[in-house]
C-alpha cells in the first residue's frame, strides 16, 4: 500500500496562512455555485424505472381482482416476514384460493424480493412514495387496500395498465430458465441491452461476449 502523506508546508505558508486562505477560497467558490437543494413539494424528484415505493397488488383487467395464486413464494422470501397470506385448497383439484393477502408496510424494508420471486407478476412495489398517515393501522395493507394502491399508482403515473412492466417482474441479469413461473410479462426491447440476460436466448450471445439484440434471436 502506498501512503500519500500530505506535503509539509513551508514557513512562508504558515506565516501567510495559505491553507486557511485556500479553504476560504473554496467556500467562496461554493457560495457562488448553484445549490443542490431540491425544494421538495414544488420540485419533485425524478423517479427512475425500478423505484421501490408503496406496495400494491396488480389488478387483473379480466377478473378485476388480484393475480395472486397463493404460491407463498413472496411470504417465504420476505426478509422481514411482513407478508401474510391465507388460502384455501380445493380438495379435488388442488387449486389454491387466496382468502386474505396483507402486507405490513411498516415492517417492509423495500428490498423488492417479493416482486422478483412472484411467478404471476401480482405483487409490486410501485413508484408512489407519498403515503403518510396519522395511524399505524393505515399501513397494514389488506388485499382491498393493495388493489386500491395499484389503482392510485396507475392513475397518478398514467401508465397503461395493460402494458406496464416492472423491471423486477423480470429481473435483468438472471437467466430466464432459473426464474419461476411461465406467465411473466415480457419487457420492452430497449431494456434488452448491454449484454444483459433478459428473456430467453441470451446465454449464447453472453458466451461469445458480443453485444446482443435479443429481439431477433
Amino acid at each position, binding site marked *: 500500500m502506498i501512503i500519500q502523506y500530505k506535503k509539509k508546508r513551508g514557513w512562508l505558508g504558515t506565516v501567510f496562512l495559505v491553507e*486557511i486562505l485556500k*479553504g*476560504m477560497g*473554496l*467556500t*467562496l467558490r*461554493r*457560495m457562488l*455555485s*448553484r*445549490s*443542490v*437543494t431540491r*425544494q421538495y413539494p414544488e420540485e419533485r424528484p425524478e423517479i427512475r424505472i425500478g423505484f421501490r415505493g408503496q406496495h400494491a397488488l396488480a389488478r387483473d383487467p379480466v377478473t378485476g381482482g388480484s393475480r395472486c395464486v397463493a404460491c407463498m413464494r413472496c411470504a417465504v422470501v420476505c426478509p422481514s416476514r411482513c407478508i401474510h397470506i391465507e388460502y384455501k385448497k380445493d380438495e379435488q383439484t388442488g387449486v389454491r384460493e387466496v382468502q386474505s393477502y396483507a402486507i405490513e408496510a411498516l415492517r417492509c424494508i423495500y428490498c423488492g424480493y417479493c416482486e422478483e420471486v412472484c411467478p404471476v407478476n401480482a405483487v409490486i412495489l410501485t413508484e408512489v412514495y407519498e403515503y403518510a398517515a396519522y395511524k399505524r393501522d393505515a399501513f397494514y395493507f389488506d388485499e382491498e387496500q393493495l388493489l386500491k394502491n395499484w389503482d392510485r399508482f396507475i392513475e397518478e403515473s398514467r401508465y397503461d395498465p395493460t402494458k406496464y412492466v416492472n423491471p423486477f417482474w423480470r429481473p435483468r441479469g438472471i437467466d430466464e430458465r432459473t426464474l419461476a413461473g411461465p406467465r411473466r410479462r415480457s419487457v420492452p426491447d430497449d431494456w434488452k441491452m448491454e449484454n444483459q440476460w433478459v428473456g430467453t436466448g441470451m446465454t449464447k450471445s453472453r458466451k461469445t461476449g458480443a453485444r446482443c439484440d435479443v429481439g431477433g434471436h
Partner: protein
Amino acid sequence: MVIEILLTILLIVVVFSVIMLHVAYATYFERKVIGHMQVRMGPMRVGPHGLLQPIADGIKLFFKEDVFPETADKPTFYAAPIICLVAALTSIAVIPFWEGMAISDINIGLLFILAMSSLAGWGVVLAGWASNSKYAFLGGLRASAQIISYEIAMGLSIVGVMMMAGSLNMSEIVKAQAQSPFGIYAIPQVLGFFVFLVAMLAETNRTPFDMPECESELVAGYCTEYAGFRFALFFLGEYVGMIVMASVGTICFLGGWTGPFEVPFFPIIWFMLKVYFLIFFFYWVRATLPRYRYDQIMALGWKVLIPLALGNVILTGIMKTFVWH
C-alpha cells in the same frame, strides 16, 4: 436644553431600531451565506426566499416558556443576559456613522468600546456561574479566560492606530486616516489589522473561537439553562457585539465613512458597505474553519497574537519617530 435632550432620545430610538433590524437580518444573512457556502439554500419557506424568517424566529422566541432552573442564583441569572445586551448596545453610542453623526462623540471612544466589550464578557461569566449547571459553568470559565486573553491582543492591536491618529476619538481617527497617504490604516497597520481580525472573532465568541458555547462539548455553553426571550437577549447581544466589532474595524482600519467618492444624501453608504463586508467575513470564517482546541486558542492568543501586537506597537513607534514625522 429640553429640546436637545428630546432630540437625543429620538436619535437613540432611531439608531436602536435600525440596529435591531440589522441584528434580525444579520441572522438571516448568516444562514443564507453559510447555506450557500455549503451548497444549500438556507431559509426558503417563510416569505419569498425566507425573508420573513427573522420575524418568525423573534415571535417564536418571544412566546416560548420562560424556564427557570430551581437551583439557579435568581438575581444574577436574571441580570446576566441584560448585562450582555446593554453592554453591547451601549458601545453603539460612540460609533460615528458618518461625519458628525454619533450619539455621543466622546474623546475616549475606543477605550469606552474596549471597556464595554469586557463588560459583555462579564455577563457571560455571570450567566455561566448563576445557572448552577456544569455545562454553563464550563462555558463561563472558558469565556472568562478567552476574553481576558484576547482583550489584551485586541487592545494592543488598536494601539498602533491610536499612535498614528494621535487620538482615541473615533471621528478624529477617521479624519486622520483620510489624510494619511493610503487613506486607510489597514495597509500601514497590516499586522495590527490581522491581530484585530483574529481578536475580533475571539472577542465576539464566533467560530473558530466559540469555546464558551461550543455545542459539541458543552450543549450550548453559558446559555444552556436559558430559554425563550432570555436566550434571545444573549443572541441579540452576540450579534450587536458583532456589529460593534465590525464598526470598530471599519473605523480604525478601513477608513470609516470615507470612500473613493462622495455619495450625496446618503453619507452612511461606505460605512455600511464596509461593516457588511466585515460581518460577511465573520460568516465566511465560520463556514470555513473548524473550532480550535482550547489550549490552541490560549497558545495562539498568548504566544502569537500578543507578541505580534507588541511588535506592531514598537514598529509603529519607530516609524513614527524616524520616518513619518
